[in-house]
């Protein structure tokens, strides 16, 4: 590839390209590909990796849990103060662009095209990186996903945790 072509492609890279959505037919996650301005597609790739072992085993329940988590992530992002929002947005846009993906992961292979062990390897390399920027990227995404998943009462059954019911009983 000529250098000029590479730069043009990289800068024109859209979220769909980076995530490999052109090659991926998703009837699994509730995402409108044309209107994915909330990074749902990106998180739909990451959530099952972060929550492997925590998500329900039954496919339909798993799909619902992932979708609830994606909704919750979207809501959490909307609550962030401007500085944190800007930082997160920058990270997510990098992960949705080919050049950013190359910088952050050493590969332009779209995330959606990567297998689970490869995604785990990517998260592990950030987690153990000597660069604070990579570690904070990992931790930021991890906290966002974990907090969003465990915020839903529907996801507490494995914890055997439930809030008290005395208030409901008093109504």
């Amino acid at each position: 590839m000529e250098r000029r072509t590479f730069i043009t492609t990289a800068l024109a890279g859209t979220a769909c390209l980076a995530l490999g959505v052109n090659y991926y037919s998703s009837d699994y996650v509730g995402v409108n590909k044309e209107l994915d301005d909330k990074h749902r597609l990106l998180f739909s790739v990451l959530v099952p990796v972060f929550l492997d072992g925590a998500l329900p085993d039954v496919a339909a329940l798993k799909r619902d849990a992932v979708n609830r988590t994606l909704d919750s992530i979207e809501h959490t992002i909307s609550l962030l103060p401007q500085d944190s929002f800007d930082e997160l947005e920058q990270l997510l846009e990098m992960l949705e662009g080919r050049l950013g993906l190359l910088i952050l992961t050493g590969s332009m292979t779209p995330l959606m095209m990567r297998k689970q062990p490869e995604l785990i390897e990517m998260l592990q390399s950030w987690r153990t990186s000597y660069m604070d920027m990579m570690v904070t990227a990992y931790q930021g995404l991890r906290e966002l996903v974990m907090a969003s998943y465990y915020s839903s009462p529907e996801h507490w059954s494995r914890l055997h945790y439930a809030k008290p019911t005395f208030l409901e009983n008093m109504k």
Partner: protein
Amino acid sequence: MAIEDPIVTGLDSGWSHINAAKLTESQTLEADVVIVGSGAGGGVAAEILTEAGLSVIIVEGGQLKSSKDFVMEERVAYPDLYQQAAGMKTTDKAIGIFQGRAVGGSTTVNWTTSIRTPEPALDYWAQAKSVKGLSRIELDPWFEKMEHRLNISKWAYEPNRNNQALKHGCEKLGWQYTVIKRNVLGCWNTGYCGMGCPVNAKQSMLVTTIPAALERGATLVSQAQVIKIEHHNDKIFALKAQAVDKNMKPLPVELMFKAKHYILAAGAIHTPTLMLRSQLPDPYEIIGKRTFLHPTLLSGAVFSDPVNGHSGAPQSIYSDEFVWQNGADGELGFKLEVPPIHPILIASKTLGYGQSHAQLMEKFNQLQVTIALVRDGFHDNSQGGQVKLTDHGFTLDYPLTDAFWRAARRAFASMAELQFAAGAKQVLPISEGMPYLSSWNEAKKTISEMDLAPLKTVVASAHVMGGCPMGEDPKLSMVNSFGESHYFDNLSVMDGSIFPTSLGANPQLSIYGITARNATRLAEKLKVG
């Protein structure tokens, strides 16, 4: 029968409350005293000043929420009641900070632990920080007054299993421990203090001093963020505020507040931020510097029996075995406590993801967590952090020093020793790379060699102090020992920002007692004036 909500009842009875987010036009409001912030300092000051017959306006950036809104779910409580939805972090993101943001401030969401200011801290302030008149003998009557006012008394019931482990470990090892005094009245022992008390048992500012002030005619303005102190020579002449939505995003309406006297009580991050943004005189460049946390380490322990750390009074036992062991300015000490265990808190403050994290979460009810709160601000290598302005707000730059990491290693070892003594099957220091440890012998060796570093070791804090210190020497302080500005006749500071160091104890009662003393003096001065 439903729980009565005293805020709803009060508002129905005609309390003066303005939700700035609902205003359509800018307004100017006047009173004898305007108080910025409605937490431990602002609430106590408001009650005392209105009792003295002064007119008071309380300005709060957060929302007015009350027991009807406290539904015992983290997903509701964190966005509604905490700064940055409980996601606030220091500049390098190495420390997570939990700070309240609603009417009542952090008192609406704290875990009710009430401790008088430790004598070694007061002695150090007198000796090294030019603080006068704040010995324990002088302060004790003020602590008694506030303990009486807020029903602060020793927790008379059995500690929950999480706290019991701390107690049993201390008993086995011969370590000091104390049964905690709590500001509760008719507590239901449910364990949801951190999400706002659903039954109004917690004697927070929301249900005590603020209602008392409103009964006496004070005005509460919520969702108004004070953005500028207008000043000229030695006088403050107005405060400018902006209406904000529930996420603190600015709305078009502005408010002006005018008063004879102004009190800053916005907490140890927002008070210095407001002073910096308003460019108050600061010839010795003190504002925002020496801001302190109690940087806190976490140690998880797996027990074979259910711990159910979400249930029951969240904190009822602490140990001061290691807080002052090396003298005030020696190696950093740490206080041992336990936190309540709820899903988001534990999921986000533990490590890893995927199968290993899921397995940890499956042990949720067998999990005991001990925390070590490191006492900062006394040792030469423990100068705390600095509040700095950013384009959109502030940041707290808080480098963790070698002295802190030495204390952290000792703290992890002490917590593991305690947890094994209490019967833990496994202990997991919450720091990257640490395995589950199966015995105290294994823990001792592994912890002595463990890697400790920012971002690798989980550090959190719920206590913010300093940044606008008190003292008689203007080279060391912004306000005198009564919280009165060195530079303005009509400005006082009444919150945790006036502490010259951290405390080595949970701060709410220190703020209540010292504010009661300082607000009483201010009320006398203003009445004469």
